């Protein structure tokens, strides 16, 4: 049985080499993720902001958590995804890997910035300071600069192969920062509190508080899926604009051929 699983995985691996196959298979995923994100984020926001009870110490300001935690989690996951794509891109020279890195950057930058901003707004009333140079905040700031650096690098290099390799290398090397962010609060004395919400342990709060957080986290992940996949599909179309399958795709939708030829 394991043989057939390996065989189908191998097949999937080879198919991933084809941007066309990826474009076609993800057609419905984009909409699925989008609908789920809209529902989850709406429910999570209303639940978390209006119905979850306030905290005994922090009162209502703890509700910033419902934006801060998902933004931080998803921005780190996206970076990890970029690191994996970088590895695949460097070793197997898969075109889709560079497409994935390019498509992840804008959302990664936005969510990291959102996590830092919401953390700052949260820090003011609770810690008594907008910004403190502790392990968690600094390593997250490093992640923001890595994202921005890779973005700038890709903009700066005109030659496509070189651009892909450079971005992949920096993405991969920067992955070292992810465990630093995660374990900073355990390795060192930091002002930032340890995680309240992990995959492996019981949340450090009652269900009426963590359930809306779970909904928000899932909502952010669905939104990320929607956003990154849409960007990947767009990037594939842009890169494959001169191929026959894209021409046929647009001909079938009776779009004037001039649009595809322009690029």
């Amino acid at each position, binding site marked *: 049985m394991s043989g057939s699983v390996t065989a189908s995985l191998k097949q999937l691996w080879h198919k991933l080499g084809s941007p066309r196959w990826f474009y076609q298979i993800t057609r419905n995923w984009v909409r699925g993720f989008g609908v789920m994100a809209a529902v989850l984020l709406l429910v999570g926001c209303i639940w978390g902001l209006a119905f979850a009870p*306030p905290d005994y110490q922090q009162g209502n300001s703890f509700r910033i958590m419902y934006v801060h935690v998902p933004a931080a989690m998803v921005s780190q996951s996206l970076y990890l995804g970029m690191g994996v794509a970088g590895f695949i891109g460097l070793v197997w020279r898969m075109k889709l890997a560079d497409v994935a890195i390019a498509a992840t950057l804008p959302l990664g930058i936005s969510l990291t910035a959102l996590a830092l901003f919401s953390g700052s707004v949260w820090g003011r009333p609770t810690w008594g300071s907008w910004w403190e140079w*502790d392990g968690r905040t600094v390593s997250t700031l490093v992640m923001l600069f890595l994202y921005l650096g890779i973005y700038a690098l890709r903009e700066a290099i005109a030659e496509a192969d070189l651009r892909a390799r450079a971005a992949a290398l920096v993405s991969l090397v920067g992955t*070292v920062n992810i465990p630093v962010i995660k374990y900073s609060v355990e390795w060192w004395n*930091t002002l930032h509190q340890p995680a*309240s919400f992990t995959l492996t342990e019981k949340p*450090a709060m009652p269900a009426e*508080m963590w359930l809306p957080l779970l909904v928000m986290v899932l909502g952010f992940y669905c939104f990320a899926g929607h956003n990154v996949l849409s960007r990947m599909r767009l990037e594939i179309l842009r890169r494959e604009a001169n191929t026959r399958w894209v021409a046929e795709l647009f001909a079938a939708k009776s779009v004037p051929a001039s649009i595809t030829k322009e690029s």
Partner: protein
Amino acid sequence: MNPKRKQRLFMTSFVLVATALTVSLVFMALEQNMNMFYPPADVAQGKVPLNQTVRAGGMVLEGSVERASDSLAVIFTLTDHQGADFVVTYTGILPDLFREGQGILVEGELNRAGVFEAVEVLAKHDENYMPPELMDMPGAAPATASTEALPGLGERE
């Protein structure tokens, strides 16, 4: 896997491992400096340089907070509940979460008398959240408030 790809796999993995190794060596070398503050034991044992701007942290000792009646001056004791403590003086507005039993970071200078003259006071809260109703239930509140004396405060390997 063809030889060329195998070589790339090897080189790429090498880059990743080397980077991880470099970073962890840097962190090991910096060990003490990566910590954001000195725990009460270090202050009590005189490990903290005098008359230099440093950070220290601890829990506010119950019953130790004295406020001046005519100014914002306040005196309190920070402790690790394990025998080590030190006195802090501060003039200014305290964070909302400042209270007895709360984990607090102070930034300032330790003077010759062993009193910490703080210029900034920061509140450190833990990862536990709770609705206020649960605080009134006997047994519920102290479980999170005091048994696990704020991880990261007072302990240091």
